[in-house]
């Protein structure tokens, strides 16, 4: 089994996460800060394109790796790379969705919940960085911590969405806020799913609750 080429795939996934962090920062700063959208739009879409291209590169490298190492192939590992790269790629897509909320003119920069939003932004940002730091490690405990943390965050976001859908909270932009939480929940879920791919049996990847 050619280890160097797999290291190369790890490096590509890491690069995807660095770009995901960047696109996440852009989107969240547009929603929570006073960023002029016109100044970051090109950067945001270019970063998304970079993530997509890296995703394709991971797939290509996996095919080449499979063709070259056809006799002693670690199929579960390649399947986990496939699912991880897909999950990471989706983070970029949801960041684009967050940016689109900002483009509709909605902003959370001036509300009284800003501090909690900023805290949420920072926590999710840390998850992305955490995932990146887990890629090259074989520290199962650290990955399990990440899964636990992400699952708890995802559950909190679910509660917020349910509260909004049941009109328990009175807020300025109910639809945008629901979508905001929904997209953040999806980002967290994809981070958790990508993390499960690092340690879970192939058939259990993505199915943490079952």
């Amino acid at each position, binding site marked *: 089994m050619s280890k160097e080429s797999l290291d190369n795939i790890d490096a590509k996934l890491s690069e995807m996460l660095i770009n995901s962090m960047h696109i996440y920062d852009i989107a969240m700063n547009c929603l929570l800060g006073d960023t002029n959208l016109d100044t970051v739009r090109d950067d945001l879409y270019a970063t998304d394109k970079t993530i997509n291209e890296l995703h394709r590169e991971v797939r*290509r490298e996996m095919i*080449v790796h499979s063709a*070259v*190492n*056809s006799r002693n192939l670690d199929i579960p590992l390649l399947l986990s790379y496939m699912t991880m790269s897909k999950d990471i790629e989706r983070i970029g897509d949801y960041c684009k969705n967050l940016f689109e909320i900002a483009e509709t003119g909605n902003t959370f920069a001036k509300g009284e919940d800003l501090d909690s939003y900023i805290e949420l932004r920072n926590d999710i940002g840390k998850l992305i960085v955490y995932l990146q730091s887990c890629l090259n490690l074989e520290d199962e405990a650290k990955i399990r911590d990440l899964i636990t943390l992400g699952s708890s965050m995802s559950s909190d976001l679910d509660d917020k969405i349910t509260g909004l859908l049941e009109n328990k909270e009175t807020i300025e932009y109910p639809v945008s806020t629901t979508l905001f939480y929904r997209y953040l929940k999806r980002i967290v879920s994809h981070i958790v799913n990508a993390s499960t791919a690092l340690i879970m049996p192939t058939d259990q990847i993505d199915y943490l609750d079952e």
Partner: protein
Amino acid sequence: MNLKSFKNLSFAILFLYFFLVSIKLLEKGIKTLGAEYTDALFESVSNPFAGLLVGILCTVLVQSSSVTTATIVGLVGSGVLSLEYAIPMVMGANIGTTVTNTLVSFGHARREQEFKRAFAASTMHDFFNLLVVILLFPLDLFTGFITKLAEDGTEFILATGFSVTKPNSPIKAGIKWGSNNILDGLSSVPFINNLSENSYRAYAALLIAIAIAFIFLSLRNVVSNMKSLMLNQIEFGLDKALSKGGGLFAILIGILITFSVQSSSITTSILVPIVGSGILSIENAFPITLGANIGTTITAVLASFAVDNPAGLTIALHHVYFNLMGVAIIYPFKIIRNIPINLAKRLSIITAKRRYIAILYVLITFLLLPLLGVVLFN
């Protein structure tokens, strides 16, 4: 270099040595058989067309053009097979070797589009080699220009005093030492010793059988060890070829991969799933295949180091020139380059719809037609 790589490299060198010793054994076996008997044996390939078809058949049977060409070099080196008859056989080996990656493409038969691409990727090699043989075989047959070039090349190399070609070179001495030791070892077996004293033909036949088996096994081990050793480089090279597209760079990658693993089938078979998955176009895979065709000629050159007769080097150089010329004729001009590619694509459209045609194609092209031809030409 880690322990595994060191082990792979050591085994590759060891088996390369065994490979060269096997060629020497073959030469000795043929010489022991005697001219009278060997003349009769090779009468069946005294027709160039029959030689071409025998080359195809032998390569299809052993699934390795390297084994066929190395054996031919050994036969030429022993003086039993003349250049005139060996040349078409080597050309046939070029065609026969393409069956391996065609068989690999059958692994993609489940999905129509994938199979279409994979089958086209494998058969473009068939069409390329057929086209080159159609162009150069009659030309060389009637003018002998490639043969003349190869003879001049041999004279030039011998004149430079390149140590490997000298009869008393350390490599040749080492090969001779190895083969003599094997012969001594065989003689110590009472049954074989008895055979060598009472029935020289049976003894020679045994030597030839052992030599061919050794050629096959040693080459197989050279290929597998070199492949293990070069996995990262192969992957790196293919990734680079993917990012750069086709062109001369891809030809170079094909040459380097094949040169390092001593097998064009490895290179072309790796390409099949990559093209099948759609991440490499047939057009961009084509130059890598052509590179593989050039890279594979190194085995015959190596084999020629084991034989004393300069004709062994001439047939090896002929193989090099023939494959280089094929690329030089077909690749530079898009209109010519597209002929094998388009033929392969058209055939793949038909076979993707009716998969049994793919099986028929392999059986007819690589078995029935050559067999029929050998019968007819004799």
